[in-house]
């Protein structure tokens, strides 16, 4: 597999660069699955932002006289074991899941990028130390690392985001380091060094823009993983705590009733599946569009 090319397009002539930029959007729009994924994600984002307006009921008010009501016009997705409206909970759950996805990807991405750039730019001892740490982290499976971190820090939304974020640092660090190493040896960096630019300026102005594509691709696919990991944490009781509506914990709480009330687990399960699917399709589409040579 060829690694170098992300930056190459930008190095060629101005006209070619223009052509490539247009190509990205065109290529992306041609990919129907990717567009479908994006539409679904936009939809979820709208639902998350306008959750209070969309949800017909409160996500936490219990109605003990109306437990296990099957889906109806009153409660589209039925009610759960406490008589709470499952549809409203799924809607609010979109909020939590997207926040977790965004913030934990933010944590993993920013820390990983800094670590990767530092390792690649300064090299030698710094590189060895950072990459050893990354190797150690990567030797533990991501979910296991997140579970251990959550168990150590205690359950809760914030800790879950940190745990998921930290467990995804190694992958970003690796990708960024590899891309920086590719870009570093190119002529325009030498030109910048010769003209007296400091390392921070070179990194900010010349390196970061050129390694953005792989980071964006990883982030969109990583968000799917992050949402799934967070849901898994909540499922085993280490993530978001009740009464908050979180898809993973809804499935966990509802699984005891699966034989009597299928709707409690099915709808949050479908929400997770849709989001993760959509994000993966979006990620694939972005990769194909940004990096046509990889096909």
């Amino acid at each position, binding site marked *: 597999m060829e690694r170098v090319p992300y930056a190459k397009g930008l190095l060629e002539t101005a006209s070619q660069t223009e052509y490539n930029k247009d190509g990205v959007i065109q290529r992306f729009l041609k990919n129907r699955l990717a567009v479908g994924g994006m539409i679904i994600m936009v939809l979820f984002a709208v639902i998350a932002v306008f959750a209070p307006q969309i949800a017909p009921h409160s996500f936490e*008010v219990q109605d003990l006289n109306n437990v296990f009501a099957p889906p109806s016009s009153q409660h589209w997705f039925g009610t759960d074991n406490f008589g709470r409206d499952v549809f409203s909970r799924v809607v609010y759950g979109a909020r939590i899941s997207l926040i977790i996805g965004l913030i934990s990807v933010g944590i993993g991405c920013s820390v990983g990028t800094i670590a990767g750039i530092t390792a690649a730019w300064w090299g030698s001892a710094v590189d060895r130390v950072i990459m050893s740490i990354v190797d150690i982290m990567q030797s533990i499976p991501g979910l296991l690392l997140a579970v251990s971190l959550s168990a150590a820090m205690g*359950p809760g939304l914030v800790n879950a985001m940190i745990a998921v974020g930290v467990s995804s640092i190694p992958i970003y660090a690796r990708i960024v380091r590899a891309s920086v190493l590719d870009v570093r040896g190119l002529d325009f960096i030498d030109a910048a060094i010769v003209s007296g630019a400091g390392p921070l300026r070179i990194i900010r102005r010349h390196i970061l823009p050129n390694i953005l594509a792989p980071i964006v691709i990883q982030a969109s696919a990583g968000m799917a993983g992050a949402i799934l990991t967070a849901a898994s944490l909540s499922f085993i009781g280490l993530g978001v705590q009740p009464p908050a509506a979180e898809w993973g914990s809804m499935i966990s709480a509802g699984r*005891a009733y699966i034989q009597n009330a299928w709707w409690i687990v099915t709808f949050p399960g*479908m929400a997770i599946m849709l989001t993760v699917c959509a994000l993966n399709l979006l990620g694939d589409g972005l990769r194909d569009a940004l990096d046509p040579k990889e096909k």
Partner: protein
Amino acid sequence: MKKLKILALILAATTVLTACSSTQPQKSEASSSGSEVSATSTVTKNARDQLVVAIANEPGSLDPQNVGVVSAYQVQEQMFNTLVERDEEGNFLPSLAESWEQIDDTTIRFKLRQDVLFHNGEKMTAEDVRYSIQRATEIPLSASIFKGFDGEATAVVDDYTVDVKTKEPFAGALSYLATTRGSIVSKKAAEEKGLDGFGLEPIGTGPFKLSKWESGDRIILEKFDDYWGDKATYKTLIARIIPDASVRSMELESGGVDFLFDTNPADYDRIKNNPNLVTEVGTSFTHELWLLSMTAEEFSDIKVRKAMSLALDIPAIVKTVWGELGVPADSVFSDKVYGHVSIGPIKQDVEEAKKLLAEAGYPNGFSTEITFGESAVTQAALEIAQQMWAAVGINVTITPLDQATYKDNNAAGITRFGRSNFTTSTGDPDHALANWQSGYKGALNANDAHIDELMAKGRAESDDAKRKEIYKELQEYCWNSYYSIPVVFSKVSYAYTNKITNFEFASTQQPNLSQIIFSE
């Protein structure tokens, strides 16, 4: 190619989900034989030679004096005998002891059976009994329950006579001796194997002996052919360790196990309506209280404690979570326990609760955290309570811990707000209220001299009416102190396949399973 793969994935996922949603509980087809089979007439012929039961936890030990979990008691009941047995009406029946008499205030003399063999072939003598009683007063896990007995002074009179001593006059002594902690163990085996070794290879006198313990999976018991009493009616008893309550239910429905000691409330209706299964429900010795520690400053004011109680609609919580398998607690111990009086249940009064909080200096409420040993049922009840507390301004965080951590926290005295789910296997109120006493390592830490005083009085009183009067006063005092929030008396709910007959119901949740008959 990639797109195709993704499409296939979506299709597969959808199919799985749809399949899940439409699956009906599977029913085995062997139900046609009906109930006219008369297997009971020929006791010697049993249609099957093994019974499979499910227990909820893997015990760390099967040593009757060195364990504290219900799952262990349920297995031990099949492997050990006690001096006396307590029947459903609370009468004491002879078991290893043929007869007994109270020879003075603190001494009971037991005449033992002379034909009892241990699983290792040794004869049981008075020395084994003396050793077992002394052991129960010395090993910490049973010493907390057997503290009323005087192990040192308990003495062998002759080979088959033993004098069991109590430190003070002790009205409940026989009840304690009838629990699994009062089981008689082989002195020789216990001394040879040591405490840990004996826990894994216990030697008793019961109808079954331990055959194999497959850690994490099952405990296999085998019929003891030289048993002194009614011999087991089948060869093998397998106790499968299945922690998840809904999985236990499914195993029963699919035939993976034959018998459950308790039915998951969420699955009860389905199991009850399944024609291939039988459920037997009855009042139990179990009570669940949520405990406010007197070491936490926010609970030192009775107004705050009372507000915590008044905020809750206990009957609604119990109905939603336990359904038919629980009744709202109307006292601090179950109505099956000796001397129980009905006081409650708590009546919800949100306005009064808010007023009390304001008077106590919390006009805007406060925040606290409840910790407890993991239990899906308690967690569900707490999630409802959490909403009710929030309505009066009390913000309660729910934190389930694993059982061991919770017990450690209690021992270290750092639990502020906890939970006690307690089975008074003796049926004696002194046992039921054990954790209200000063010095008990629990979540309550009442340290209330009046409670200690009344408990001492009740323990020593031998007159029936007077003893009941003392416990009435004690229950009312405990109730009105609001040290605890009495929640539920859960019911015993056995469930088993309809091929089983001759099951003898026990409200202790520890039935003797040796006489079960299988029909075809």
